[in-house]
């Protein structure tokens, strides 16, 4: 068994007395495709928001690669290696496609360039700028977006916007990639394409991926392991097929 990348311990959050999520224990191993499944309002996105520092968990902790990141700020968590996409795509709409990815590259140590070096246009500026552009182009090529690199992000078709958001998240060089309903709003062709893309990322970037999804077919075809949530608590966990066939899960979904 490979090493554990993400581990949560009794993770939970309360909003004004209401338990939105409680006692979530998840272990995700390197290169795993892990699914977070459940009906609307089950607390899936809330878990993402805790893992990325948008919300501070009220109970429990979580560890990335053994390091406790509970309650850290969003930027810190991103620097430590968790990147995400959003349920309703959040691109930098009025920036070009390549600039979107370059913002993702912003914090990497090899592209450091101080304000002063930038303003005075010292050699380092030109060097980092060139290197960033090169790297961003490579990423865009992988996602089939190279042609559109100088278009505004908002002018991309929907499926490509999703891809761009993933490319931007990957540009931050994460250890763990969180995808929030990546297939939402996609047509069947785009979804099929997305499945390939996600597998490709896992294999070529050695990436560990945690994703939220409604679509059971999508999950069954993609994820190695899943956690099923309902009303903020874990219904079932483990190997995708077993978890989906768990009586509690079947009951929650079909209501009978």
């Amino acid at each position, binding site marked *: 068994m490979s090493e554990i990348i993400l581990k949560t311990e009794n993770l939970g959050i309360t909003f004004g007395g209401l338990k939105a999520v409680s006692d979530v224990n998840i272990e995700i191993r390197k290169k795993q495709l892990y699914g977070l499944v459940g009906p609307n309002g089950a607390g899936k996105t809330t878990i993402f928001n805790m893992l990325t520092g948008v919300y501070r968990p009220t109970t429990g902790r979580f560890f990335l690669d053994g390091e406790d990141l509970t309650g850290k700020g*969003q*930027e810190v968590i991103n620097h430590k290696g968790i990147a995400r996409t959003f349920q309703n795509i959040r691109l930098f709409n*009025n920036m070009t496609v390549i*600039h979107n990815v370059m*913002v993702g590259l912003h*914090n990497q140590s090899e592209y450091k360039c101080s304000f002063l070096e*930038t303003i005075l246009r010292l050699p380092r500026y030109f060097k980092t*700028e060139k290197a960033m552009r090169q790297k961003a182009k490579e990423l865009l090529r992988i996602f089939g977006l190279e042609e559109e690199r100088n278009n505004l992000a908002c*002018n991309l078709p929907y499926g490509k916007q999703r891809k761009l958001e993933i490319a931007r998240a990957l540009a931050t060089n994460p250890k763990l990639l969180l995808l929030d309903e990546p297939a939402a709003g996609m047509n069947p062709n785009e979804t099929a394409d997305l499945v390939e893309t996600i597998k490709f990322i896992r294999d070529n970037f050695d990436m560990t991926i945690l994703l939220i999804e409604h679509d059971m077919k999508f999950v069954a075809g993609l994820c190695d392991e899943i956690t099923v949530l309902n009303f903020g608590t874990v219904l079932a966990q483990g190997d995708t097929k077993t978890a989906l066939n768990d009586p509690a899960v079947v009951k929650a979904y079909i209501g009978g």
Partner: protein
Amino acid sequence: MAKLGKIKWKHYINYIAIAIVTIVFGAMSFANLLPSSTVYLLEKIAISIILAVSLSMVVGFLGELSLGHAGFMCVGAYLGGKVSCLLEPVFGNGLITLIISILVGGLIAAACGIIIGLPALRLKGDYLAIVTLAFGEIVRSIFMNSGEESFGGSLGLSTPRYDKSVLFIFAFVLVLGCLAVVQNLIRSKHGRAITSIRDNEIAAHATGINVTKYKLSVFTISSLFAGIAGVLYSFSNFRVQSTNFDYNYSIEILVMVVLGGMGSINGSIVAATLITYLDTTLQTVLTGNLAVLQDLFYALILIILVVYNNAPALSAFRATHNLSVFFEKLRKHDPAHRRDDEAKWDRVPTKIEMNEILSVDIQSTSSTVDPDKKEGK
């Protein structure tokens, strides 16, 4: 030589234009061809450009609203003016006094920017607007009620007279400096981080951008230049009066930024020049109650331009009727070069539709699950 060919002249055209203007007017000034009113107008234009370009960084690129730009200018004008009063007996009226005053005025304004920005920029929403507005009023009331011997109180502070034939050249050199700082910063990784905050703050956070740091830096740099513009103002007018730096002046600078097009530095430069020119020429034409026409004009610019450029209902109309499309048509008639956005839009948009599809999915999985369950039992 190969490298030279790669230089994007588009990026440097504003420097070149301003440099040419400076050289031409500088030469005219040395040949004594410039009337003093033109010299004064040139100084005012330089000040306006610095103000507009620095505010444009906050409003157009960072997406925050500052209504206290005149307040920072006021700080610079009073403190820079005071320093020049103190230095004049020691260093005389030369460049040294000028430079030191500008440094002091600018840096103190920048410090005020940090003090104001810290509480306001941590918060989401329109807080910066209201806090900067409050700041402008605080500054004015403090200088207004200052002692006669410190800052001249309600009479204002008299500052030394400078050689008028040189001052505007110096002012335009500062314009170039301001332009270099703002433009170089915007066209860099830092600039991309700044615009990413404007476009989607939540995503910027998630992408690891230190949002507070960038907001504060941009606001501080913009305050610095507002302060520098203030010092120039004190040199240009020989007298600094707090009543001149009121809320209306901040709005006038905002009008320049909006008129020039938010997120366009060259636009801000053109609009600043235009409005300052109109201001001065109209002053003699629109007297008495007619002076209000100018305010009315500003108000209409703000409302009409912003509604036109931002109303969601007009977005389709804007896509086909804007300047860049117009210029593109002028430049290349080849239809292959035109961007064809509509064709690429094949999204399945609504969430509700998707949920319907999903519920079907669950049914279909359940049918495959059911037999297993029966077998289990």
